[in-house]
């Protein structure tokens, strides 16, 4: 099966995963194989005329009544905090 690299690169961009060249090679082949296998559902669905099922019981969900639940302190999380704000790299470019 032929592997379409542009497709993999597009998927990796959407998924924000920086793949190494070597990884690209092998994952590309795996994806083609897996996609080929999963394609069976497309064929099967055509013959079914079934509506999609997103929630297995098709029941409406509940609504939240106002209540109090525990808060989180940002300091507890493994994240960089500056003056109460969560600091994230933005246009820094250089290695931290």
């Amino acid at each position, binding site marked *: 099966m032929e592997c379409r690299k542009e497709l993999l690169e*597009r998927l990796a961009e*959407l998924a*924000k995963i920086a793949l190494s060249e070597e990884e690209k090679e092998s994952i590309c082949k795996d994806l083609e194989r897996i996609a080929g296998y999963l394609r069976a559902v497309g064929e099967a669905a055509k013959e079914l005329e079934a509506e*999609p099922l*997103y*929630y297995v*019981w098709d*029941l*409406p*969900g*509940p*609504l*939240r*009544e*106002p*209540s*109090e*639940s*525990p*808060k*989180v302190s*940002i300091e507890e999380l493994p994240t960089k*905090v*500056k*003056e*109460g*704000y*969560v*600091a*994230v*790299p*933005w*246009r*820094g*470019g250089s290695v931290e």
Partner: protein
Amino acid sequence: MKAMIGLEIHVQMTEAGSKLFCDCKANYRGMEPNSNICPVCIGLPGALPVVNKRSVELALAASLAFNCHVPDYIVFTRKHYFYPDLPKNYQISMYERAGGVPICRGGKVRYLDIHSWEWKECRLRRINIEEDPGRTIYGEGGILRSSEAYVDYNRSGVPLLEIITEPDLKSAREARQLVEYVLLVLEYLGATNPRLEGAFRVDANVSVEGGERVEVKNIGSTLDVEKAINFEIMRQSAIISSGGKVERETRHWDAERGSTRPLRQKEQEEDYLYFPDPDLPAIALRDMLPKAKAIASSSDPAALFEKAISLGVQRELAWSMVTARPSLMLYLEAVERGADPQLAARIIAVDYKGELREREKDPHDPANWPSADTIVELSRLMKEGAYTYDAIKGIVLPKLAENPAADLKLLLPQRAENLEQVIEEVLKREERAVKDYLSGKAQALNYLVGAVIRAAGKRALDPRAIREAIERRLAKK
């Protein structure tokens, strides 16, 4: 050049109480950064969203108010994009395809053009309920160059209404009026306080004849809606009249510079990978309809405006009251309790409001308005001829504006009949001035008025009423 304008109005339901899917507060103003967060709204692994009932009720009331086609149930979808202010890197929103069901599809807003006093119509494409992302601020160099970004997630998960219109608007002014009217309706429904910082944002799709559609993002005030669209119409018209082409693009409104600038172009179309949020089964609306209908019908600014008009109030005054909800509510209550509709309107919409403005007091804060009983009493006193309108306006209203809860009795000027005796005494004492006045020296009257006020002590007095009383008295001589 002819323009076509469509809007996307994002309005926070600041009055919903809690965030859309957790118990953190919907109104985060004045809080320390990242102090209004929980596992759900910062998307920690394993935490699950549950839809806040009040948000859906309010969104449903808004959909009814805008004559929407409302479905039997709504389905939230996940919209995926990576951004630091989006803790899950997807936003729980709505989408009309891929299994999503928005709360409103196909509605229309009737809004008032206060320049022509005409009701106009703008069709709505749909309304989505969605969660607001956090708020990002940038360091030195701003969004383009700052090395770090700083995120406050207090806003993350606040319920938003995304109101998407058809491109039915023809001018920047119409667009502004539509936005103002939409905000007014949502305020009346109790969904939002549009005056809170950051309570709404507008994106405008603008095209002129012969050009492609340009999206202008990041408009933060109704004034800027007008400015940004006017700028864009001029910019595009200039390109076309000089023979150029307007390409489809997204631009950013820079409020400080008063201009739009292009946003970095993405090489590829966005793909948000929409699908129904598997954590949120569909929400049935039927049980909520009666309550939402009641909210929508009792809080329609158009109907309340018409009611004021039907009481004989001038439309300008009626509109002035509509735009400050507490003033309209005060007016309607006062009239219902027997206040004269004209006098009450004049006090509330013109002079008292003017006093508030002079004192930089917020007319949207109910605490800055007197009670309906006070208005009823003032109206009665004027109606009975005890005081002139000017007396009330000149003496009572400024003091009332200072302290709306003050006892009216202490603010009222001394009544004319009690003054008769004082005037009599003063005229007897000031023989010379009386003589001067009678011989035609006009300034002598001012002296006599002053003397009466002094003689009466510190009580609040209406100089004009005293002047009239002296004139009446001396004319008899």
